[in-house]
C-alpha cells in the first residue's frame, strides 16, 4: 500500500478495498513510470500523460468493480498492457491526473489449452511470449506478432493494431486478430460480457468456436478499439499444430527492379512459398530478402524453398554472401528483439518508421519517405538507415525506414522536435497520398486515422461509443470524434 495523494481519497480507499491495498498506488514516481513506451529517446516524445492512480486488478470481477466505481465518480479509465507499443499507446492526449490507469499484467494466467478443439484461452494480461511458449509445450503454434512478443500483452495487441512490433508471420497469416474466437470484456458500464459463441452467448455451446455464425461479429468490434469500448480480460484463440520445420534464409536481390519484381511474384504465389518475408537495404547497397519457411515436413519445406529460390533466380537474385552487417540486419528482423539489441555496435537510439501502404505503391512511398527524412532529420547524426518492405498478406505491405541515431544524438530538444516533425509529416504523407496508416511513435495514430474517416463512419462510431459509454469514461477522446 502506498500513501494516498493526488486523487479523491474515497476513490483510493475504495480501490484498495476492491483489489487490495498492495495493488493500488498514487505515488507520482510509480504513476509516471507508466507513461513510457519504446522509442522514447528520440522522436517518441512519447511520454503519455500521468494517471492519477494506478490499479492492478487480478480478476475480471475486480475490473468490473473498478469500472463501476469509475462510472459512479465519472473518473476516466486508461487500460494498459505490457507497454511495448511502438506507437506509445495510450497516446499522450489520453489520461491525466484525474484518471485511473488499469495495469492488466496481473491477469496473467493461461486458463485452458484445449488440444481437441485446438483453442487456447488466456487472461489478457498474458504476454504473447508466454502464450506462445505455453501452447508450444503442448505441441501447438499460435500466430502472434513476433517482435516484441515479450513485451506485448494479449489485451494490448488486440486493442491496437499489432501492439507495436515488426511483422513476421503476419506476412502470410495476418495479425493474431484473425485467430481470435471470443473475448471476455468488461464494458464501460461495468457489465461483463462474453463474445464469440460459447457459454454466455449460446446456451448450449461450451466452446468458443466462431465469431460470426448467425450473428454480427461482436468480437471484432473490440479489436483495435484502443480499449475505448471496454477492458478485455480474457481471450480465446485458435491454435495450430506446431510447424516443426523452420528454414530461414537470406537472398541477395540487387536492384530495386529485381527485388520488386520478385517480391510481387512471391506475394502472388499460392500457396505462399514463405511464412515470413522481408526485403531490406541500406542506401547504396543491394536489396536483400530475409525469409522464413515454416512447414510440417521437410518435403513441404523443400518444395516451398525450391519455389522461392526459382522466383528469386528468375529475377536476377541468388543466395546472399552475407557478411557481418547483413547477418546482423537479418538477425534484427528475425530475432525477437528490437533493433538496438541486434545492432549494438551502431548507435544509442533506434526508430522504426513504418506504415501500412497499398502494395503496388510501396516503392513509391519508400522513395517519398526517404526524401522526407533527408529533408527533416538528414542533418542529425544518423549512424545507419535501412529501408524495409514486408508483405502483409497480399494487398498491403508494411513499409518503412529504420533509423539508428549515432552516439552524438542525445535526447536534446532540438533533435526531438525535428524527429517529431518528421514523423508527423510521414503520417500525413502516408494517409493523404497513399491512403495508408502510419504507426506514429507519438501515439497519435488513433486520432490521425479518425481524421480520415468518412462522415458516415465517424457518425456511426460516435453513436456506438455513446451508447456503450454514456459517461465517456473509457479512453475518452481517443478518436477525437
Amino acid at each position: 500500500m502506498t500513501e494516498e495523494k493526488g486523487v479523491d481519497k474515497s476513490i483510493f480507499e475504495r480501490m484498495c478495498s476492491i483489489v487490495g491495498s498492495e495493488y493500488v498506488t498514487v505515488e507520482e514516481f510509480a504513476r509516471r513510470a507508466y507513461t513510457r513506451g519504446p522509442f522514447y529517446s528520440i522522436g517518441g516524445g512519447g511520454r503519455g500523460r500521468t494517471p492519477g492512480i494506478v490499479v492492478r486488478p487480478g480478476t475480471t470481477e475486480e475490473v468490473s468493480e473498478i469500472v463501476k466505481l469509475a462510472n459512479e465518480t465519472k473518473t476516466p479509465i486508461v487500460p494498459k498492457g505490457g507497454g511495448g507499443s511502438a506507437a506509445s499507446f495510450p497516446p499522450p492526449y489520453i489520461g491525466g491526473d484525474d484518471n485511473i490507469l488499469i495495469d492488466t499484467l496481473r491477469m496473467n494466467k493461461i486458463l485452458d489449452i484445449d488440444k481437441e478443439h485446438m483453442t487456447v484461452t488466456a487472461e489478457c494480461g498474458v504476454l504473447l511470449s508466454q502464450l506462445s511458449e505455453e501452447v508450444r509445450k503442448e505441441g501447438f503454434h499460435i500466430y502472434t506478432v513476433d517482435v516484441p512478443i515479450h513485451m506485448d500483452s494479449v489485451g494490448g495487441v488486440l486493442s491496437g493494431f499489432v501492439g507495436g512490433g515488426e511483422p513476421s508471420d503476419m506476412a502470410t497469416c495476418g495479425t493474431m486478430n484473425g485467430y481470435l474466437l471470443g473475448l471476455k470484456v468488461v464494458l464501460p458500464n461495468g457489465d461483463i460480457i462474453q463474445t464469440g459463441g460459447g457459454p454466455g452467448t449460446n446456451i448450449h455451446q461450451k466452446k468458443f468456436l466462431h465469431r460470426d455464425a448467425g450473428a454480427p461479429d461482436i468480437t471484432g468490434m473490440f479489436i483495435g478499439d484502443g480499449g475505448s469500448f471496454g477492458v478485455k480480460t480474457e481471450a480465446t484463440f485458435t491454435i495450430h499444430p506446431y510447424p516443426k520445420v523452420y528454414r530461414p534464409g537470406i537472398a541477395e536481390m540487387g536492384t530495386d527492379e529485381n527485388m520488386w519484381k520478385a517480391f510481387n511474384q512471391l506475394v502472388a504465389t499460392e500457396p505462399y512459398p514463405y511464412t515470413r518475408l522481408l526485403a531490406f537495404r541500406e542506401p547504396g547497397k543491394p536489396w536483400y530478402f530475409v525469409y522464413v519457411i515454416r512447414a510440417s515436413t521437410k518435403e513441404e519445406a523443400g518444395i516451398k524453398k525450391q519455389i522461392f529460390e526459382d522466383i528469386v533466380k528468375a529475377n536476377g537474385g541468388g543466395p546472399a554472401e552475407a557478411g557481418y552487417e547483413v547477418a546482423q540486419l537479418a538477425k534484427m528482423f528475425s530475432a525477437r528483439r528490437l533493433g538496438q539489441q541486434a545492432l549494438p555496435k551502431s548507435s544509442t537510439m533506434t526508430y522504426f518508421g513504418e506504415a501500412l501502404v497499398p502494395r503496388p505503391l510501396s516503392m513509391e512511398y519508400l522513395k517519398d519517405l526517404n526524401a522526407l527524412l533527408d529533408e527533416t532529420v538528414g542533418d542529425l547524426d544518423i549512424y545507419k538507415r535501412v529501408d524495409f518492405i514486408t508483405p502483409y498478406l497480399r494487398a498491403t505491405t508494411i513499409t518503412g525506414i529504420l533509423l539508428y541515431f549515432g552516439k552524438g544524438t542525445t535526447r536534446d530538444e532540438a533533435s526531438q522536435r525535428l524527429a517529431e516533425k518528421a514523423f508527423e509529416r510521414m503520417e500525413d504523407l502516408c494517409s493523404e497520398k497513399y491512403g495508408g496508416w502510419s504507426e506514429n511513435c507519438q501515439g497519435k495514430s488513433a486520432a490521425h486515422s479518425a481524421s480520415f474517416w468518412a462522415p458516415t463512419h465517424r457518425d456511426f462510431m460516435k453513436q456506438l461509443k455513446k451508447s456503450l459509454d454514456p459517461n465517456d469514461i473509457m479512453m475518452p477522446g481517443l478518436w477525437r470524434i
Partner: protein
Amino acid sequence: MEMNHLQEVKENILKCMGCGVCRGVWERQDQAMCPVWATNIGFEDGTPRGRVTVAQDLLDGHLDYSLPLAESLYRCTDCASCVVICDAMDPETGKPIIDVPSIVRAMRMDLVENSMVPAPVRDYFKAVHVNGNPYKIPQAERNKWTEETNVQAYSGQEYLLYVGDAGSFDERGMKMARFVAEALEKGGVEFGILGSEEMSDGNDALALGESGLFEYLAQTNINTFKEKGITKVISLDPHSFNTFKNDYQGLGAKFEVVHYTQVLAGLITSGALTAQYGGAKVTYHDPCYLGRHNDIYEVPREILNAIPGLELVEMKRNKKNAFCCGGGGGNFYTDMLGGGVNSANRIRVREAAETGAEILAVACPLCAKMLEDGIRDEGLEETLAVKDIAEIVMEAAGKK
C-alpha cells in the same frame, strides 16, 4: 534535493530507448530475468525500464526523491540480469550502454546523501557502522566459527582467508566457512584469518548507496591487510570477492583476491585434493557477484565435473542467465524485495527442483541461506539439499 550521483550517470540514462526488454521473459526459462519483475508485486517503477524512467524524471525535475521511491529502489538486488538481457554494449569500452544497476546505485547514493533511506537499510548501515558487521554481534565473536577447528589467526601465511559477515555470524555461513577451511587445510594451503580484526567488506554497503561507509570499511580492511603484509586473499563470499576485485583497487589496495572455488579447483587439478562421490545429481546456482559481475562461471563447474560420482545438470537459467536468489544488493539483510510465493529464492529453488537434482550446489553463503529458506518454503526438504562447493568436496574427499 541533491542528485549529484545521478547526474554522473546522465548519459547512460538518456541512452535507454525504453523498450522494456530488460524485464526479462518469464516463460523463456533459459534467459535471465529481473527478480523484482518476477515477483509480480509492485508497479512499473520496479522494473529496470521503470527505474530508468524514474531516473529520467528525477533529472528532468519532474520528480524528487521520497521515502516511497526509496522503498521501490531498494527492491533491486543488483543482480545485473537486466544488463545481460539488454545486451547493448559499447564497442569502445566493452561496457553496457545502459547499465541499470549503476543507475540504481547512483540513485541510492543520492538517497543516502539526502538522508532518505528505508528503516531496514538505515538499520543495516547503523549496525555495520557501530559493530563492524550487520549482525550486531561483537567483533570479538568473528572467529566463533573456528571452534573445534584448526584454523589459525593470520601470521604471515601465504593466504588470508577473508570470511566475511555471513561466514562469521550466520549459522549457515559459519558451516560453509568450516568446510572451506577444512578443504583448504586438506589441500595443504597455508592460510590464516583476521578474526576480530576483520571488518565488513563493504560490498553491500556500497550497493545500498553508502559510499562513505564503504570507504571507511574498505580503508580499514586495506590498512589491516597492509599492516599484516597480506598480499593474497581467499574470499569465502562472492560479495567480498566482487568488492575486493572491483572497488578496493581504486582505494589503493594492493593484494590479489581469489574466490575459494578458484583455489579448490587448482587443488583438485593438481591432485592435492582427491574426491569421489557416492553418486548424486547436482545442479549449480551461479551467484550474481561471481557470475554476471565477474564472469566466473566455469570454475565451480570444473570442480563438480571433476568429482567422480557426481552428475552435473544445469538449470534452464544458468551462467550469465542464472536467476538471482534475491540476496544481492544488500537485500539479504534488508529484505526489501519480498515476493511471497514468487520470491526470488522460491522461484530459483523450483527451477533447481525441475532438474531432478538432489543437491543444489552454491558458492556463496548468502545464496546458501536464501536457497535453504526457499527449499523449506517450497516443502522440498526431502528431495533437495543445498550444499556449498566446499562441503561437496569434503564429503567427496571423505568417501574417497
